[in-house]
Structure formats: structure tokens, C-alpha cells
């Protein structure tokens, strides 16, 4: 018992681990709540593209030696609104439009970063996250913007629910469909931006989708999906970070692998929806 406690407390002696754990907790929670809409509205590819398309903003901020966060924020908002606009107006299909933009934007980011000498180390941090390098300023920015996003999700709960479930009904109620859809894109963009340092570009979509998808298998109401998703996201983040501390693997990868573990468990054993359950029902 004492040993177990020691195992849990030991990493907390390092301030960078405490900051990393706090950042992971916040990011895990936020990504799962916003990810609920990503999963329900089939926006996984949009989330992935958004995370990649932010790279040029990060690169420019890096070259100008300002906090990478601001570069990501500007680029994230531009991309979210741009993709939203293109997918409504474009002659090509939505996923094609997203594919073209995100690959081009990502390439531009890599090109910009490759002009710097320490290119490979920095690119690795941006791609896969560096949660142990989180500063106090980063923590405050994450907490502040995270609260704004959660407040929007909370205050517009019933409107975002009906727009997602039944847009036709929402239109007959004269709800501002376009504004609400753009708002959702912006909320996803903000979530991606504040999570960038902890999770990195490449694994972002997993944090958006995996905990929310796990919760989807376990519930039948939207708010329950958000709460259970948040709990799974937070638990994955903390467990993943401890795993990375003791087994010495990359933190972002460890977090995603733990979250995937939860998903597999739910996929197999979820009451009524799990594979094992259906198999037993099929035999009975």
C-alpha cells in the first residue's frame, strides 16, 4: 500500500511533472467534451486536418520567437472558418476540399520550420507534443481558453444538440444554423490549439475522438456522453503520463494508447452494445 502511494507521489516531486499532469487533465477533459460533437457529427477528419493545418502558424510564431500558442490560435481560427466556408461553397466534395487545404498548409509549416537548424527536435515536439515542457503561462492559457470553450458548450447545450440531431427542426425553429455550425468549428479549433503542446499535431484526433467514442458506447444521452467522455479522457491523460514516467515512453503516445485501451474494453464489454454482449445474446 505504501509502495503504491510512493509510486503515485514520486513523480509529483518534479515541478515539470506536476505541470504536465495538470495540463494533461485539462486537455483530456476538454478534448473529450468537444470531441462528443466531433464523433456525433462525423468530423474526425476535420479535427485531424485542423490540427495539421495549424503548423504554419506555429512555425511563424517560432521564427518570430513569440509564444507558439498565439501562432496556433490565429491559424486555427483562420482554418476553421476557411474550411467551414469552402465545404459549403466549393464545387469539390467537402473531404476533398479539407484534404487539399490541410496537406498544403502542413507542407508550408514544415517548409518554414526546415529553415531553422534545430528543425528535427522542434518538429518532433510539435508533432507529438511535449507535455513536460509546459510552462506556467501555458497552463494559465489552457485553463482560461478551456473554460471559455466549456462555458459555450454548457450555455448553448440545447441549441447545439438540436442543430446536431435534427437540423431541419432547428431551421423551423429559426435558430441561426450557420452561426451555430461555425461556432462549433471555432470551439473545436480552440480545443485543438490549447491541446497542441500536450498532445501534438499527429495524435490530436485521437484525443478528440477516442474518449468520446468510448463514452458513446456506454450511454444514451448527450450530457452523459460528455461527462463519461471527460472522465475517460482525464483518466487516460493521467495514467498515460505516469506510464511514460515509469516505462520511459513518449507521453503523448502513452496517453493515446491508454485511451485506446479504454475504447477496446468498451467495444468488447459495453452493456447492450458491446461485442461480447451481442455474442452472448446471439447464443441465448
Amino acid at each position, binding site marked *: 500500500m505504501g509502495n503504491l502511494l510512493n509510486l503515485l507521489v514520486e513523480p509529483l516531486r518534479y515541478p515539470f511533472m506536476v505541470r504536465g499532469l495538470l495540463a494533461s487533465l485539462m486537455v483530456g477533459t476538454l478534448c473529450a467534451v468537444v470531441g462528443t460533437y466531433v464523433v456525433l457529427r462525423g468530423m474526425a477528419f476535420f479535427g485531424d486536418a485542423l490540427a495539421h493545418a495549424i503548423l504554419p502558424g506555429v512555425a511563424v510564431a517560432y521564427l518570430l520567437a513569440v509564444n507558439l500558442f498565439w501562432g496556433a490560435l490565429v491559424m486555427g481560427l483562420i482554418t476553421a472558418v476557411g474550411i467551414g466556408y469552402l465545404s459549403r461553397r466549393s464545387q469539390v466534395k467537402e473531404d476533398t476540399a479539407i484534404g487539399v487545404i490541410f496537406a498544403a498548409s502542413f507542407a508550408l509549416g514544415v517548409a518554414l520550420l526546415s529553415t531553422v537548424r534545430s528543425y528535427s527536435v522542434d518538429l518532433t515536439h510539435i508533432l507529438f507534443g511535449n507535455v513536460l515542457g509546459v510552462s506556467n503561462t501555458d497552463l494559465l492559457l489552457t485553463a482560461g481558453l478551456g473554460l471559455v470553450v466549456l462555458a459555450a458548450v454548457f450555455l448553448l447545450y*440545447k441549441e447545439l444538440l438540436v442543430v446536431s*440531431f*435534427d437540423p431541419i427542426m432547428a431551421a423551423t425553429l429559426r435558430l441561426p444554423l450557420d452561426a451555430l455550425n461555425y461556432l462549433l468549428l471555432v470551439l473545436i479549433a480552440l480545443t485543438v490549439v490549447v491541446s497542441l503542446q500536450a498532445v501534438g499535431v499527429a495524435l490530436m484526433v485521437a484525443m478528440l475522438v477516442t474518449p468520446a467514442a468510448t463514452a458513446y458506447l456506454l450511454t*444514451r*444521452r*448527450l450530457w*452523459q456522453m460528455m461527462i463519461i467522455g471527460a472522465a475517460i479522457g482525464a483518466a487516460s491523460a493521467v495514467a498515460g503520463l505516469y506510464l511514460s514516467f515509469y516505462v520511459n515512453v513518449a507521453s503523448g503516445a502513452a496517453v493515446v494508447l491508454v485511451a485506446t485501451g479504454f475504447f477496446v474494453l468498451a467495444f468488447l464489454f459495453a452493456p447492450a452494445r458491446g461485442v461480447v454482449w451481442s455474442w452472448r445474446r446471439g447464443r441465448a
Partner: protein
Amino acid sequence: MAPILKVDSLTVNYDGTPALEGVSFSVEAGERVAVVGPNGSGKSTLFKAMVGLLRPVAGSVQSNGAKIGYVSQRSEVDWRFPVTVHDVVMMGRIAQIGWLRWQRPSDREVVRRCLDQVGMTAFAGRQIGELSGGQQQRVFIARALAQNASILLMDEPFSGVDVPSQEAILEILDGLRQQNVTVLVSTHDLNLAVERFDRLALLNHRLIAYGPARGTITPATLAAAYGGQALWRGEDYALVMGDIGCCGEAESHHG
């Protein structure tokens, strides 16, 4: 008595081509109207224009302040969405609750009453996709009632539901008549339209005929609406050919 609903020379384009041309009719409070016509005759377009989903090129729809509730075709929502029957009916209260506010006990009371009216109280906690097609229709009727709608537009409520469910929906509509709720239903089933509704609107881009359910369908009006696709079978019955296997039937439901 003044009509509760007045549609006046309504003209609607759909994808650039005219879908409805100069449609005019009026409905008294509490009447039940069946809108019939071949595929693509503009039945859905008519309803969508009436609730403001499509903007008419010309003409108007007046309801004297009465709220119009719309029950869309079954295929138009995601049935696997994590919402319960209670949640779906509560969506009807959004306008009354208002922005940045939460449901009040009075809203929950309205939802309970509306669920009771359609006989779905026992299913309040079920996920919407776990219900049969007919039960889903009843839930969406309850949602329209929760909007305080006194005019109900239902697009193809009988397609893809079995006969007992169809009967259950018709019984609910009978009950609504007692509360003076006006109902417009689009359907393919001419016989059902003649037997169970007060008035009949025969549509094919234009309003071919409009009048009491019995007597509006004649060999002439039938030929005008369906061309060679319908057979005249005497005073009350008509058989529509080549038009049966269409939209929304055999819609699978998930869950």
C-alpha cells in the same frame, strides 16, 4: 368561421426548376387534410415552404398566429444519436425556454403531457433508435405538440410503418381533432386518404383538385394528377400503379 390556414398562390422553385406553381387552398381549424400526388409532385416542397424551410418565389402562407409544427420524413435524422424520447420532445420547448436558459419544471410537465397524449409515456427513457418506426412518428408528433403547435404538417408518416402503427397514429390524430388541432398529412395511400381524412388535396406541381375527401377523386382529376399511372376503381377507390415502391419505405431503423 375564418380558416386557420390560408395558402395563397404559392410558387416555389426547387434547384432552379418550378416545384409548385400557384397553389392556393384554405383549411378550417380542426380539419384533417390528406395531400396526395405522385412522386416528385411537390408534397414535401409544399410542407417545407409552409414552415419556412424553402423560400417561395411568390405567394404566401398565413396561419393567423397559429404555430405550425413540422414532422419530417423518418430518414432525415440520425437514429443512433444519444438522445432519449424525453430529450427529443424537450427539443420542442427550445423557443419557449429561450437562449442561455435551462428547462423549467413547467417544460418537463408539458413534455410529460405531450408524451401521454401520444401514448409514449412508458418509453420516455428509451434511446430514440430503439423504437419502431410508428413509435418514432408518435414521439415526433409529441415534439410538435410541445411546441404549442395547433397546425401539424406530417410528411409521409405512414411510409415504412406497419398497419397497427398506422392505426395508432390515426387514433392520435382523431384525439387531436378534439383539441381543434389541424392536421395536414402527405401520403401515397389514396384509399387511406379518402377513408380517414376530411379533405383531400390532389397535387402535381399545381393543385389539381381540393375538396371533401369523397368526391374529389374522379377519373378526370386522377388522370390529371397521375397520368396513366392510376386506375379508376369506382367511387371511393383508386389504385396507383408503378408508384408504390418509393421514398422512405423499408427504411431500416438502427438499434
